[in-house]
């Protein structure tokens, strides 16, 4: 039975997952090598809890209890008593592989080691451990406290038990798990590619301009946001990187080929909302 969830990485995703786990009444050990990152994460969590109380989404008691259940720690060995680990470090295969190799020596036998990745191979992440059957992908979506979906990704060696335990945990955290194979982009980042790719091609071919494509997709298709609005929100650089990653991992399958417009936007520094300029202008 899972009582303590260890979370590695106190960035946006790690702190978001810690919030979710603590509100689901788990004890949480939140690890990061940076004391500053841990402090920032705790401040962010406190502030989010305060807002949730103000909006009456949780009670003040729930917020206090959840906050008390999160234990920030700098030493990876402090995760030794965890019953389930979620790693949410930076999206770098070598960094993740090193963490998983170290975890192998720290956690007890049979403890599930989940990696929160959107693009890396679960099989590769778990390849240096002695228990690859316990390694699984647990892809939370940003912002983790809000988004309901979790992709549970089965690597080459992931056991049925590991996948089930991960799904059960996701459900306890109030999420909806979907199980998928360890293939590039998993489900969402793969199936969504044509939404952007075709829109960019339509633009490039001069079939319709940005604003018109977005209007059509929303009014005719019922989508909440048009592809260009969404790329601006996600970050054109982030979207481009995901497209390139899926394209490369599929050995240059033409369906996933990035569009020159994306590259040009990135090169020009027009990355979307975060730079106040993308396919639209956000300057006041």
């Amino acid at each position, binding site marked *: 039975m899972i009582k303590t969830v260890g979370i590695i990485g106190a960035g946006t995703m790690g702190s978001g997952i810690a919030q979710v786990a603590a509100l689901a009444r788990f004890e949480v050990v939140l690890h990061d090598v940076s004391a500053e990152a841990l402090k920032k994460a705790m401040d962010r969590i406190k502030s989010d809890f305060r807002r949730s109380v103000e909006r009456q989404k949780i009670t003040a008691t729930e917020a206090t209890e959840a906050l008390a259940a999160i234990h920030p720690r700098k030493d990876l060995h402090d995760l030794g008593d965890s019953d389930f680990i979620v790693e949410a470090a930076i999206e770098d295969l070598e960094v993740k592989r090193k963490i998983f190799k170290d975890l192998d020596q720290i956690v007890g036998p049979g403890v599930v080691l989940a990696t929160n990745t959107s693009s890396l191979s679960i099989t590769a992440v778990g390849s240096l451990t002695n228990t690859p059957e316990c390694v699984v992908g647990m892809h939370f979506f940003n912002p983790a406290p809000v988004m309901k979906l979790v992709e549970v990704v089965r690597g080459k060696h992931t056991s049925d038990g590991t996948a089930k335990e991960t799904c059960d945990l996701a459900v306890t955290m109030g999420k909806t798990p979907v199980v998928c194979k360890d293939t590039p982009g998993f489900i969402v980042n793969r199936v969504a590619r044509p939404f952007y790719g075709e829109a960019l091609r339509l633009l490039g071919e001069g079939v319709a301009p940005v604003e018109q494509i977005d209007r059509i997709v929303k009014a005719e298709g019922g989508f909440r946001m048009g592809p260009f609005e969404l790329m601006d929100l996600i970050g054109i650089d982030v979207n481009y990187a995901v497209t390139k990653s899926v394209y490369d991992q599929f050995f240059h399958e*033409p369906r996933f080929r990035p569009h020159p417009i994306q590259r040009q936007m990135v090169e020009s520094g027009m990355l979307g909302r975060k730079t106040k300029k993308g396919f639209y202008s956000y300057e006041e």
Partner: protein
Amino acid sequence: MKKRICILGDSPLVEEFAALCLNKGYTVQARLNASGAVGVRLPKGVKKILRPTKANDFALELTNIERERKKKNLIELDKALPSKTPIFSSSVTFRGGEQATWISHPDRLMGLGALPTLIEGSLVEFAPTQFSDVSVRDAAGRFAQSLGKESEFVQDSVGLVMPRILCMLVNEACFAMGEGVAVPRDIDTAMKLGTNYPHGPLEWAARIGPRHVAAVVSALHIGFGEERYRVAPMLQNAALVNAFRENRV
């Protein structure tokens, strides 16, 4: 006086447009293409015709699947209707410009983004051809307005905007399903919860009909000659089953 419209084409597009036009006060005459029409009934109040009559204000040609059938329907409409009566013809699988060359009055033809269920949205896509008269563009806008829809005019290109994006999403979901990436229900759930799509792509395929989706993707494949647009084997199979059922049930 009630506006009159003649609708020819594939099921279920003809039924969808006929029901909407009827609901908006049109007098509707319609004919379904023989293929794919077995067991299908037109909405009550729609006059079932063998041949289009002269007395119509607009005509809709809604064939997406069979090129020869579409060509025959358009020629028939062109001969039956007065030369200035606009014909709005689905151009998601055959470019409007090409269709216009099949008829004697090419200036009256305007491409239309007709794919099953998309008419439920609040906007209709039109694509003027190189021949389209400006008066036909005005008529298209008025027609959309009479159905309570906005209109957008885009360049004449296979798939237009929404049908092309949507069908390619479905195609990718079918590739993923065929490769066993996830079960269909999980693919749909993931796309709805992970990206806020209004429907899962596979649910959408079922609503639109795999034959229509496969026809659009296949048309893109032919039109662009690129591997990128090859039809997913799973979609191809679903389209075949779809065609079989429509013709045999």
